[in-house]
C-alpha cells in the first residue's frame, strides 16, 4: 500500500518567513542534553507503552514458576519483594500440566499444524502457477471467486461440514482438520502466491519453455525456488493461524483428548479446572512456546504475510 503522491494539505501552516531563520538557529543552539530533554516525552511514552504491553505476558511467565499455594495467596509481583530467593520459583507446574494431558496435546498440535501448513502451500503454489502461466478457460473467474472467498467467515461453513463429517465418520480425525484448515487457508495462499509469481519476469519462464522444459520442470526448478520468500510468508502465517486456532479444532475434533491440540486442552482446563491456576499458567506458556519461537525467528516473514494477509477475513 503506497501513499498517493499528492502534495500534503498545507492549509493552516504558518506562512514562510522569519520562522525559517528561527528554526535553523534553534536547531544549532540546542545542546545534546537539551535535545534529549525536548524528546523526553516521546521516550517516556514509548517506554511506558512497551512496558504496559509486556506486563500481562511477563506476569504469566513469572506466575508459571510459582508454587500453587503462592499463586492463589499473593500476586505475582510480590516475587520482586525478595528477588534473590530462588526457592520461591519451581518447575512443578510444568510437570503437573504435562502430566495432565498437555504433553500429548503439544504433539497433537504439531501433528495438526505441520501438514495443515504443507498441504495448502503445495496446493496453492500449483494453483497459483497455473493461474499465472497456463492458458485454460475459466482462469480469471476461478481467481476472482478465490479472492471473494478470502473474507467468507468460516462460521458459514461449520454446520454443513460437521454434518458431512459425521455422515462420513471422519469427525474427530486429523485428516478432518488438515483438510479443513487447508481449505480455509487456501484463498490467502493462492492470492499471495499468484501475486508474487505473476511479478516474476516473463522472459525467464518463456525461455524455459523454449528450451523444452515441461511445466513440472519449470515449476520445480524455477518457480518454487524464486517464490521462496512468498511461500515462507504464507507458511509462517498459516502455521501460526492453525497452531492458535480453537474454533476449527473445537468443532471438528469434538472432545476427544486423543487428538486435542494445546488450545483445546487449555480451554478445557479453564472450563473444568478454572481454579487450578497453577495448571493454567504453565499450560498457557507451553501453548505459547512454539508461536513465540516462530515469531522471534521469522518475524520478517510473518510481517510480510500480515501485510499481504490484511485482506484475509
Amino acid at each position, binding site marked *: 500500500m503506497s501513499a498517493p503522491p499528492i502534495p500534503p494539505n498545507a492549509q493552516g501552516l504558518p506562512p514562510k518567513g522569519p520562522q525559517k531563520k528561527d528554526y535553523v538557529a534553534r536547531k544549532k543552539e540546542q545542546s545534546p542534553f537539551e535535545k534529549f530533554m525536548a*524528546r523526553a516525552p516521546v521516550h517516556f511514552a514509548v517506554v511506558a507503552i512497551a512496558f504496559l504491553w509486556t*506486563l500481562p505476558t511477563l506476569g504469566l511467565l513469572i506466575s508459571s514458576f510459582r508454587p500453587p499455594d503462592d*499463586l492463589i495467596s499473593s500476586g505475582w509481583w510480590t516475587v520482586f519483594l525478595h528477588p534473590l530467593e530462588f526457592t520461591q520459583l519451581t518447575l512443578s507446574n510444568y510437570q503437573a500440566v504435562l502430566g495432565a494431558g498437555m504433553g500429548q496435546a503439544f504433539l497433537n498440535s504439531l501433528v495438526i499444524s505441520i501438514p495443515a501448513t504443507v498441504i495448502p502451500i503445495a496446493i496453492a503454489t*500449483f494453483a497459483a502457477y497455473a493461474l499465472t502461466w497456463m492458458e485454460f478457460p475459466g482462469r480469471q473467474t476461478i481467481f476472482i471467486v478465490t479472492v471473494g472467498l478470502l473474507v467468507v467467515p468460516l462460521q458459514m461453513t461449520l454446520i454443513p461440514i460437521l454434518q458431512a463429517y459425521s455422515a462420513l465418520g471422519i469427525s474427530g480425525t486429523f485428516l478432518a482438520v488438515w483438510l479443513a484448515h487447508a481449505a480455509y487457508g487456501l484463498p490467502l495462499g493462492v492470492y499471495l502466491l499468484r501475486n508474487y509469481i505473476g511479478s516474476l519476469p516473463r522472459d525467464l519462464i518463456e525461455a524455459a519453455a523454449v528450451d523444452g522444459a515441461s511445466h513440472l520442470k519449470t515449476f520445480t526448478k524455477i518457480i518454487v525456488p524464486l517464490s521462496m520468500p512468498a511461500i515462507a510468508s504464507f507458511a509462517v502465517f498459516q502455521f501460526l493461524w492453525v497452531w492458535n486456532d480453537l474454533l476449527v479444532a473445537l468443532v471438528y475434533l469434538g472432545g476427544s483428548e486423543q487428538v486435542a491440540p494445546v488450545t483445546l486442552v487449555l480451554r478445557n482446563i479453564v472450563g473444568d479446572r478454572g481454579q487450578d491456576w497453577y495448571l493454567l499458567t504453565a499450560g498457557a506458556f507451553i501453548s505459547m512456546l512454539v508461536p513465540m519461537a516462530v515469531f*522471534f525467528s521469522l518475524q520478517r516473514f510473518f510481517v510480510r504475510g500480515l501485510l499481504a494477509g490484511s*485482506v484475509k*477475513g
Partner: protein
Amino acid sequence: MDNVSLILKALLAIALGSVGIIGIFYGLNILVEKALPERSRIKVLPWIYVGPSVLLLTIYLVIPTIRTFYLSFFDNRSEGFVGLQNYLFVLTAPDTLVTFRNNILWLVLVTGLSVGLGLIIAVLIDRVKYENLAKSLIFLPMAISFVGASVIWRFIYAYRPEGAPQIGLLNAIVTSLGFEPVGWLVNPAINNFALIAIMIWLQTGFCMVLLSSAVKGVPDDVLEAARVDGASEIQIFRRIIVPMIMPTVLVVSTTVIVLVLKVFDIVFVMTGGNLGTDVIASRMIREMFNFRNYGRGSAIAVILLIAVIPVMVANVRRFRQQELDR
C-alpha cells in the same frame, strides 16, 4: 501408550499428511505427461495444477456457504421448513439483541482504539533508536492465541473478596488506592469492556506494524519543509502524516473490522457468553452445541456473512484494479 511410540506416531502422521500431498501432484503430473498425447495433454494439465485448489474450495467453502443459507430456513434439526422464523427470532429475541449491541461496542471500540493507538505508537516509535525492540514487544501479542491471551488476562482481572489478598493486578491496584475490589468479568456494566481490552491489546501491534511502514513512506523532505516553515509536530501529524497514510488506515481498519466480527474465542473462554457478554460468533457456537439448533445457528452465520459482503466487494474491486494496472 509410551512416549516413544506416541512421538513416532506423530512423526508418521506428519510425514503422511505432508509428503502425501506432494506425492499426489507428482504422480498425476507424470501420469498425464507420459500417458496422454500432446494435444489433450495441454488441455488436461492445467486442471491437474488448479484442480485440487478448486475442489477443496468448492467442497469446503462454496457448497457449505450455500447449504448454510439453505439450512437457515429450516428448524433445529434441519428437517421442517420454517420460512423466516429463524431470522425473526435472531433479530427480535432480547438475548440475541444483546449480542448485536455487544458486537457494535466491539466494532467501534476495538477498531477505533487499536487503529488510533497503533497510529500514535507508529509515529512516536519512528523517533527512538530502540524502535525495533519496542515494536517487537508491542507486536508480540499477535503471536499469542486468543485462548492464551484469555489465560493471561485472567491474571489481570482476577477477583478476590474484600480483605483477601488480591492476586489480580487490576484489583491489587484498585484496593491499594482504597477502593473495593471490582468483579471485572462479572459486573455487567464493565465486563464487555474488560473483554474488549484484551482484543485491543492483541490487535494494536498489528495496526502499529502496518501503519508504521506507511508512516516511513512519508517523504522526509516534505516533513522537513513543514518544520522549516514552523509547523508544530502536532500540525505535521494531523495535516501531513494522517492524510498521506489514509489508504493504509482504511485497509487496516477493514481488516480489524472483519476480525472483530468473527471474534469468538475470547468470549467463549473468558465468560462462555454469559452475563450479557455474548457476541454474534460465540452465540452461533452456542446455538450449535448448547441448544442444538442448526437453523438458528445458520441464520446467525448468514447475518455474519452479510456483514462482511461490503469488504468482499471492495477486495474484488481492488483486485480488478490491480489486474488492470499490471
